[in-house]
């Protein structure tokens, strides 16, 4: 405990993965989140996507809706509809975005969460 607190000031600035304070799982995830590994993960995702797309040609689909018969329908739907939603949200956001204290003081958005309900233990103080 005290050991961790001594190291605290440097913990925030240390490179991910080299921090001895981290729990083992945290170290594992840090390794996965490192830029190189992230790139590999991205390519793995692309391969998985391609694989699932091609899988459509390998088996007999049991369908109820006619559009389902289009090869890769679910893939295209997932890709473009979600992207479309994000685009729409972005446009809509320009209209309805306001400062955080727009409703203050009658809203919690601009407030800090009361400390006595929290237990902010940190590795880096």
């Amino acid at each position: 405990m005290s050991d961790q607190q001594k190291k605290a000031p440097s913990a925030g600035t240390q490179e991910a993965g080299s921090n001895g304070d981290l729990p083992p799982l945290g170290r594992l995830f840090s390794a996965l989140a490192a830029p190189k590994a992230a790139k590999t993960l991205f390519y793995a995702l692309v391969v998985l996507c391609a694989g699932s797309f091609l899988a459509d040609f390998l088996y007999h689909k049991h369908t109820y809706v006619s559009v389902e018969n289009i090869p890769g329908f679910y893939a295209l739907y997932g890709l473009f509809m979600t992207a479309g939603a994000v685009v729409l949200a972005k446009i809509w956001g320009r209209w309805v975005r306001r400062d955080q204290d727009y409703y203050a003081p009658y809203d919690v958005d601009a407030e800090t969460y009361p400390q006595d309900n929290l237990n902010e233990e940190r590795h880096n103080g």
Partner: protein
Amino acid sequence: MVEAFPIAFLFFAGAALLALLPKGALRAGVLLAVPLVALYLIWNLPEGNLFSAQLLNVELELMRVDRLSRIFAIIFCVAAFLANLYALHVKDTVQQVAALAYSGSAIGAVFAGDLIALFLFWEGTAITSVFLIWARRTEGALATGMRYLIIQVSSGVMLLAGTVLIWQESGSFTFEAMTLGSLGTWLLLASFGIKAAFPLMGNWLSDAYPAATVTGTVILSAFTTKLAIYALARGFPGTELLIYVGAVMTLLPTLYAILENDLRRVLAYSLNIQLGFMVVGVGIGTELSLNGTVAHAFAGILYKALLFMGVGAVLYRTGTAKASELGGLHRTMPLTMIFCAIGAMSIAAFPWLSGFISKSLILSAAAYKGYYIIWGVLLFASAVTLHHSGLKILHNVFFGQDSGLRPKEAPVQMLLAMGMTAALCIALGIFPAMLYDLLPFAVDYAPYTLTHIVTQFQLLLFAILSYVLLVKSGFYPAMKRSVYLDTDWSYRRMAPAVIGYAALMIGRMWTGVTRFALRQLTDVATGLYKTHGPEGRIARVWPTGSMVLWVAVLLAAALLVNFL
């Protein structure tokens, strides 16, 4: 010995006991034991109307046990147990009592056999739950809680008004399936609709839930809205209108869930979307779709609670749940991250997780009945849910830009609660029969077909791909400290502004009118004074004799009247 008693009373007794016990282990014991004992009792109850009570000449059915009410009561007990376990560190008596009384009211409402009993417990959930928001003890929470309470209570008032009208028509209070038509049924639908967060009526949900305490939000997320889903499934199965209402519910909150910065608000919006799925299921009204609604409520309570627990743990350790302030927490909160990921995969309906086996019942029901557009809408909502409730939260809290925060892992009771909830999410996904056996109708449905698994993976993997590409290209909306105006703006800003403006205008008009009238009156008075006053021109030429004459006339008139 009494065969059965209202399970709600067990919770109320527990809540009363809590206030008497000293803080510490004994209270923790009560908080955990009450839901477990209730679960055991409910599991073993026979079906039928088991308990009735007399209230002002009305027979109240307090324990209507059938397959529909039993499964909701079961999941409510499970949710109460998990939420209380998660909140075991809380020493605040108000929150502890409110948690038990609130879950008890919800269970009481589910078992209510008539509309009067439903109304009593319905208001009970409103009044007890608001304390979970007020327990934050800030000015903002007080105001938010007040808004929440006004809306919840007005839902209850509508329920009561509808009940009275229905009683006038049919002479019965029994709560059973209705067809829309009379004013009474519409009032009931509106009352349920407010609590189920229908479009334009449900903004209280995303307004109030993020304002509650860390643990309060977890408890809130389980009961009120699912109680409304139960009431809809009981009262309005097969009402076609609900299909379209539900479809809109799955669409509108999506934009806000994508934009919002406060992650507990993101989850509140996504909860609203999940309710949309359930409402569609009620609207279709086939055995398959109603099963789907109930199954989705069951699974949804668990994975939603899990997500609120995960984000709540982050709030508990860092003091914020805002995406703009967080990032890189995978280093020190890896277990919380894993649980969040399981919750996210469940809500996004990955195969072998709970959302998959429940959501697909509703989607299939829509496709079988030929509602193809609705099916497409639900499929879209399903894919985009992975974006905002899954990837956005995982990315902004646990990965993404490093915030420099190195919080400790969540405390052990939170980890335990999250672990158990996550285990349930996985167990339901792998052994769907566990859930299907409890559903109101017999289930003849196989969720794990090759087609279904492959297509679902396609949908979700490509949704992930689109998220990654959008974030990488910098096109995904940046998380900033801001609020996004939703329909609550109409009563928080527009209505006060309109009323304020109207008051100002009416005030001005009133001043103008009175000033004008006063001036006219003054003018008349001064005019008369000028002419008829002591110095007036007319007074000058009045002889004293004319006054004497008039007095004589008056006396003569009085005499005449006296003699007549």
